[in-house]
């Protein structure tokens, strides 16, 4: 008897399908140092581009003299704003970013001029000979200086879509979310806590710096090989700058060494193309680590004020919050970050009365935009600290208090959106709490001497156990998946099935940027599952195929994965139609619905083989390109924040166990356990890696990662010597507990997984440090000075 078969069952017939821990094709190459990154690109006769950047955070350019640079032997071109051939500004959401500074520099490190030379050293030295006369201007560096009467306006002639509703021209965007009656709820509250919180400026710190190679073409166009997160968004911004139609700008993804949001905005893309078109030669640009800190946007630093009220039985009554984000000199994706911070401001809890305001400023600080967690990270740090304080005030266990207020499927967000997929918030907390605690005093050895690697300070030998206190903390977070607020968030996939050397081979072509997330592995798994073939060839990502959207917002497995599945299914229907035409007369089962492709054959759903794919296809290739969309979203109302703004929600919870040297203020995170619902683990090994990586990035924000900007807007630590990211000795055991509660709206029931773990790791670690020290700790990263009162 035939039974209905789900795609999961299909993997049994074809190895390497979804749900298996298929190894990534780039893994071994990356570990052994053989993977070719964009910085390894080379072209015969190529030139090297170099960017001259502003030494000031805010200054007028009085004059620019490039003659000495041009006179340098080996120099082929020097470009300033005056040399730009077409559009002079670009931007992801608002076109406010100059390609090269246009008479004013607005942040430290802003590109001012470009040099192309036959050697990178020559280009750098020639750039040093460009004479720019600056007149320094007053620096806007916080809310007070940005909105004071007479404050300098960063963009006085704004005509973007937010300009009309912002309270001040130095506010990029403001989004309120109001629901219920906070004043009435406050009157009923048995416990009220208020708190001020601050999040420092985190950097994506991807390992492969910005790089690419632009090659001028005979047709007057240009071919750009580039490390990016979204080829088509780059294309949309580059082509107008070059004054070329989009079909004359051909882009191919090169090896990408991490992104985390930092490659959403343009860096050297347009610059390399401009130099290539000017000189008629291929131009390569590679930032070094120092320049990379100036070459991409960072995570918005934030100041957050929260007020929570609860009833005596531990029910959240209301949340009032103000989230102030520093967007820096240009808009980047600040408006969307504001939307996220506002709509996710109360966390994964049921709250009937909400009054939230989130806004982003224009300042002369470094531009901030996308980074893993995207506005939800900052909010999560604050609301989870508030939840601990409120639990403490009520005399409740912090996990129990969270569970009492945890949202579940069917809950209503402050925006009015109903959460119509599983939301196992209480269960995630239960799982991390139920896990056995790691042993106390892990540094003690049988031999007697301490293993200093297990102590705060590690190899620096600062304690042998003196002053060390353990703490445990919990946190849970909520992140949206996919682009929100009405954005047409589609992806495109082209799938071809043909017989090569007697074997069916599927070819998958998308423009998805593989930035390390493992998308190419998953696409091959989907093709195997859907088409029942073993051999899958992945075409390089480029602009010959339609947009895949951005590799961000935890969306690629969902959206481009969905597009690949959709294209595969269209291919399958065509194959079956071919089969029916060829063999339908010989077997009645060809007329049935529900035929499958499995193991290189067409089978009935009962498993009867009807024909081999080679017989069906013969020398014909079935080729389909199609777009796929998730269900649409709506913008948030500008006054109330109401709207079904998000596609899907993603949840993770952490338990942090830390040992703190309370005298020196040094922290060793001992364990950082995570439980996360991923809907469907398409590749369990890759999902575990995503969760561990996101967790570690959250740990970094908790205890060390911060770009320090002085009050005059200058970046003080643009190097890996002083911008610290966790080493393996800072990275604890990260046990991962994966739930798979299917979201019926998503392909295979999957849930975007990449960002949620970055949210709750930070507040969990800080909660554990608070538990160890008794200190309030309202700011991350927590520094030794905060723990020692120095």
């Amino acid at each position, binding site marked *: 008897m035939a039974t209905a078969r789900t795609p999961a069952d299909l993997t049994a017939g074809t190895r390497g399908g979804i749900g298996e821990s298929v190894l990534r094709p780039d893994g071994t190459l990356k570990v052994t140092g053989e993977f070719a990154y964009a910085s390894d690109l080379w072209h015969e006769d190529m030139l090297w581009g170099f960017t001259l950047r502003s030494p000031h955070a805010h200054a007028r350019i009085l004059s620019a003299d490039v003659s000495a640079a*041009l006179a340098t*032997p080996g120099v082929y071109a020097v470009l300033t704003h005056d040399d730009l051939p077409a559009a002079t500004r670009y931007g992801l959401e608002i076109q406010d970013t100059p390609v090269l500074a246009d008479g004013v520099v607005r942040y430290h490190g802003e590109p001012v001029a470009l040099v192309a030379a036959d050697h990178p050293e020559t280009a750098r030295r020639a750039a040093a000979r460009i004479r720019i006369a600056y007149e320094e201007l007053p620096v806007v560096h916080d809310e007070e200086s940005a909105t004071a009467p007479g404050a300098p306006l960063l963009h006085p002639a704004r005509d973007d879509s937010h300009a009309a509703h912002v309270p001040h021209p130095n506010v990029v965007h403001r989004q309120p979310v109001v629901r219920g009656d906070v004043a009435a709820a406050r009157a009923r509250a048995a416990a009220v806590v208020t708190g001020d919180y601050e999040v420092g400026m985190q950097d994506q710190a991807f390992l492969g710096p910005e790089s690419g190679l632009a090659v001028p073409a005979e047709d007057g166009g240009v071919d750009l090989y580039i490390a990016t997160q979204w080829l088509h968004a780059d294309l949309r911004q580059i082509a107008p700058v070059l004054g070329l139609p989009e079909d004359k700008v051909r882009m191919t993804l090169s090896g990408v060494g991490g992104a985390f949001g930092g490659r959403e905005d343009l860096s050297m893309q347009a610059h390399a193309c401009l130099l290539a078109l000017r000189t008629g030669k291929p131009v390569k640009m590679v930032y070094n680590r120092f320049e990379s800190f100036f070459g991409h946007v960072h995570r918005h630093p934030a100041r957050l004020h929260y007020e929570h009220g609860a009833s005596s039985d531990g029910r959240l009554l209301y949340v009032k919050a103000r989230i102030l984000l520093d967007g820096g000199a240009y808009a980047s994706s600040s408006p969307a970050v504001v939307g996220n911070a506002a709509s996710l401001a109360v966390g994964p809890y049921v709250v009937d009365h909400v009054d939230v305001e989130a806004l982003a400023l224009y300042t002369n600080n470094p531009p901030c935009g996308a980074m893993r967690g995207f506005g939800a990270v900052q909010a999560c740090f604050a609301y989870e600290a508030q939840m601990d304080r409120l639990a403490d005030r009520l005399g409740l266990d912090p996990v129990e208090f969270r569970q009492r207020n945890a949202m579940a499927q069917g809950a209503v967000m402050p925006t009015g959106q109903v959460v119509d997929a599983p939301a196992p918030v209480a269960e995630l907390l239960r799982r991390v709490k139920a896990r056995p605690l790691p042993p106390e005093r892990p540094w003690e050895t049988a031999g007697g001497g301490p293993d200093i690697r297990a102590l705060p300070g590690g190899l620096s*030998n*600062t304690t042998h156990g003196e002053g060390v206190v353990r703490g445990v903390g919990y946190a849970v977070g909520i992140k949206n998946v996919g682009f929100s607020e009405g954005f047409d968030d589609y992806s495109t996939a082209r799938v071809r099935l043909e017989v090569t050397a007697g074997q069916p081979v599927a070819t998958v072509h998308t423009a998805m940027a593989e930035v390390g997330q493992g998308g190419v592995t998953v696409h091959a798994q989907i093709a195997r599952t859907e088409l029942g073939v073993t051999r899958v060839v992945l075409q390089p990502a480029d602009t010959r195929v339609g947009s895949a959207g951005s590799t961000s917002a935890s969306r690629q497995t969902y959206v481009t994965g969905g597009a690949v599945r959709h294209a595969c299914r269209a291919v399958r229907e065509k194959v079956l139609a071919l089969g029916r035409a060829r063999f339908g007369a010989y077997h009645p089962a060809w007329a049935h619905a529900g035929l499958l492709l499995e193991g290189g054959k067409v089978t009935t759903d009962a498993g009867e083989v009807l024909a081999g794919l080679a017989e069906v296809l013969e020398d014909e290739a079935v080729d389909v390109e199609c777009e796929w969309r998730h269900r649409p979203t709506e913008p948030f109302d500008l006054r109330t924040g109401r709207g079904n703004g998000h596609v899907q929600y993603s949840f993770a919870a952490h338990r942090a166990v830390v040992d703190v040297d309370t005298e*020196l203020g040094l922290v060793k995170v001992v364990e950082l356990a995570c439980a996360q619902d991923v809907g469907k683990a398409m590749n369990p090994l890759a999902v575990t890696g995503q969760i561990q990586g996101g967790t570690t990035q959250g740990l970094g924000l908790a205890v*060390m990662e911060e770009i320090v900007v002085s009050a005059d807007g200058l970046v003080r630590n643009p190097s890996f010597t002083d911008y610290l990211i966790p080493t393996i000795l800072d990275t604890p055991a990260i046990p991962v507990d994966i739930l798979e509660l299917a979201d019926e709206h998503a392909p295979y029931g999957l849930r975007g997984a990449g960002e949620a773990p970055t949210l709750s790791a930070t507040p969990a670690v800080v909660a554990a440090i608070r538990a160890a020290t008794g200190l309030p700790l309202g700011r991350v990263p927590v*520094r030794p000075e905060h723990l020692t009162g*120095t």
Partner: protein
Amino acid sequence: MRTPSDDPVRPIEKRTPMEFLRPGSWEEALAAKAEHPAAVPIAGGTDVMVEINFDQRRPEHLLDLNRIGDLYEWETEGDEIRLGASVPYTRIMEELRAELPGLALAAHTVGSPQIRNRGGVGGNLGAASPAGDSHPPLLAAGAQVEAASVRGTRLIPAEEFYTGVKRNALAPDELIRAVRIARADGPQQFSKVGTRNAMVIAVCAFSLALHPRTRTVRTGIGSAAPTPVRARAAEDFLTAALDEGGCWESGRPLPPSAARQFAELAAGACNPIDDVRGSARYRRHAVAVMARRTLGWTWDAYRGGERGERCA
């Protein structure tokens, strides 16, 4: 017009090439340094190459010391270790734990394994950064820097070697041949505060050496003053306290008040700054904590009769 024309009268500027000197022997190296006093010596390159790569330094001559095998050797001369300037930190950790426990502990905190495989004490001394990890244990051990030139060889006591921020007492024609360090006659310790648990530049550091033979103690502080410094008042206090109490003979536990005072005096020896790595107040505070703890560890080791063999 911003693209250079091919105008034949355009002046061709002379590029300044960097000359790479590769002496095959120590004598050749000294001769080269005498001929080019501004030449920058390079051994492991872990410091010099960073500066060159970021264009912070553009010497006309680089003096490569990698072909001089003697610099990679250490030997025992009586009670002294003569440590070649280029002996990498990894070998100090592995081969000299018993003889130079303070320096071996400090070596373990330098950079990453790759850096420790390349870098040595000579480079640390040449750069004379206040944050160099080897300085505090060299001060605490009473090391002497063997400086050589075509004019001859002289020994510079470590505390006279550091003359300012990234400045040292070497004459322009001198190279560091070796460091002479007394073999430990008692327990030694090294602690360093950084804001992560490995691969970190010191926010501040402290080293302590007990010298039972002379009934003295010596210290070294890193990254808490313009140069590495000794905490002399703390040393004098503790030397006197141990002496007066007959502690060296009795091996009795130190009174907490003595440890506290030692710590306060150590903090008093600091003259730190606020910078992106840490506040001046924190540095003072941390030096006091490290002084107190390292005193406890070394004194316990002395009382336990381990006499410098225990180093972690």
